[in-house]
């Protein structure tokens, strides 16, 4: 066994003071080998203080960027600190620490660059509302067509990125529906993508804000996102180039990080 690989959990958190403590505590106890960075996405509650209490690395954004911007910030952090794998882990308790191995291991083995944890690849008891389910299924079908392979759960935020994919994600930003756009541009840029079945929980705190009107808006915006990512070529960046670009900002010697 060589040098052990370094794994980073990126936890985007926007006003998650209710569920964050349990999430952090569980993650720490189940996977003590994983480093954690909490990206506080301009919260107005005690999200930042909680992250400090748990002694996690904390990136506090002065403004709310949305989930895509928060995760991307975490990936910048991963790139600068030289992590081998970074995975997104939601603060609301939906994602289970015992499922991390499922999405991280394929990357550690070198079998994939991006791994997505799917709720629907296996029959699970995870339920979504009918309107939402319909919208999700349609978008999945569309995304599958765009990348030319079957996809069962394109809105899942439970996903892991290898080094090269991290570099790509920091150089190409998608603002609105990063979940969908990111997969399409990654696959179209030649990254090895894999979908694995995972178990998830119903959200512990907070409510999904899906009304029919919102669903319609979500659908239209997602369609735009798919179109944009199919039409616009993203630039495939070399890992070494990405590191040079990042060093402009972070001059900490590597051995001190």
């Amino acid at each position, binding site marked *: 066994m060589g040098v052990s690989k370094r794994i980073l959990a990126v936890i985007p958190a926007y006003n998650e003071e209710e569920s964050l403590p349990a999430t952090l505590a569980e993650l720490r106890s189940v996977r003590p080998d994983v480093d954690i*960075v909490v*990206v*506080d996405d301009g919260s107005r509650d005690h999200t930042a203080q909680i992250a400090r209490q748990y002694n996690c*690395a*904390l*990136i*506090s*954004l*002065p*403004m709310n*960027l949305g989930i895509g*911007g928060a995760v*991307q*910030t975490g990936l*910048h*952090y991963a790139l*600068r600190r030289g992590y081998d794998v970074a995975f997104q882990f939601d603060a609301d308790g939906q994602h289970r620490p015992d499922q991390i191995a499922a999405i991280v291991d394929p990357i550690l083995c070198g079998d994939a660059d991006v791994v997505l944890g799917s709720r629907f690849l296996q029959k699970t008891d995870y339920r979504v509302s009918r309107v939402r389910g319909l919208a999700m299924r349609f978008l999945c079908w569309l995304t599958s067509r765009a990348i030319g392979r079957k996809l069962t759960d394109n809105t899942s935020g439970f996903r892991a990125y290898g080094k090269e994919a991290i570099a790509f994600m920091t150089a190409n*930003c998608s*603002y609105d529906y990063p979940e969908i756009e990111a997969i399409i541009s990654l696959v179209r840029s030649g990254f090895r993508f894999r979908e694995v079945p995972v178990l998830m929980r119903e959200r512990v705190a907070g409510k999904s804000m899906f009304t029919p009107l919102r669903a319609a808006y979500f659908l239209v915006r997602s369609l735009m996102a798919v179109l944009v990512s199919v039409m616009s070529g993203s630039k495939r960046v070399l890992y070494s180039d990405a590191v040079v670009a990042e060093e402009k*900002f*972070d001059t*900490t010697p590597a051995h001190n990080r």
Partner: protein
Amino acid sequence: MTPLQRIIGSVASLLMMALIFHLVRRRKLREEYSILWLAAGLVMLLVAAEGRLVYWVASALNIQHPAYGLFVLALLVGIVLAIHFTVVLSRLTAQNWRLTQEVGLSAQRIDELERRLAAYESEVEKKS
């Protein structure tokens, strides 16, 4: 057009151009964008000062009522301006986005450095 109309029109467009100059001088408007407005002011001045200009253009383009031509032109200029502004806005959004991320990342580094410094200082204190 009566002479009075021509004078009022010319003065109005000259005033607008003066306003643009003033804003640029006071650094409330960037030169980059002032060019656009000055060009618009110049066209307004020409149309106001030489009333037949509109008729000449209209007859050249085979438009029956010159006023329609003017109307369409104004609308087009408005649309182009609006597109220009949304492009500028999108650029600003992207820049803001990156800056926000960098502010967060830098704050995290400061945080970490301060913690390390505190740990180091307490260690030195213990030794002495």
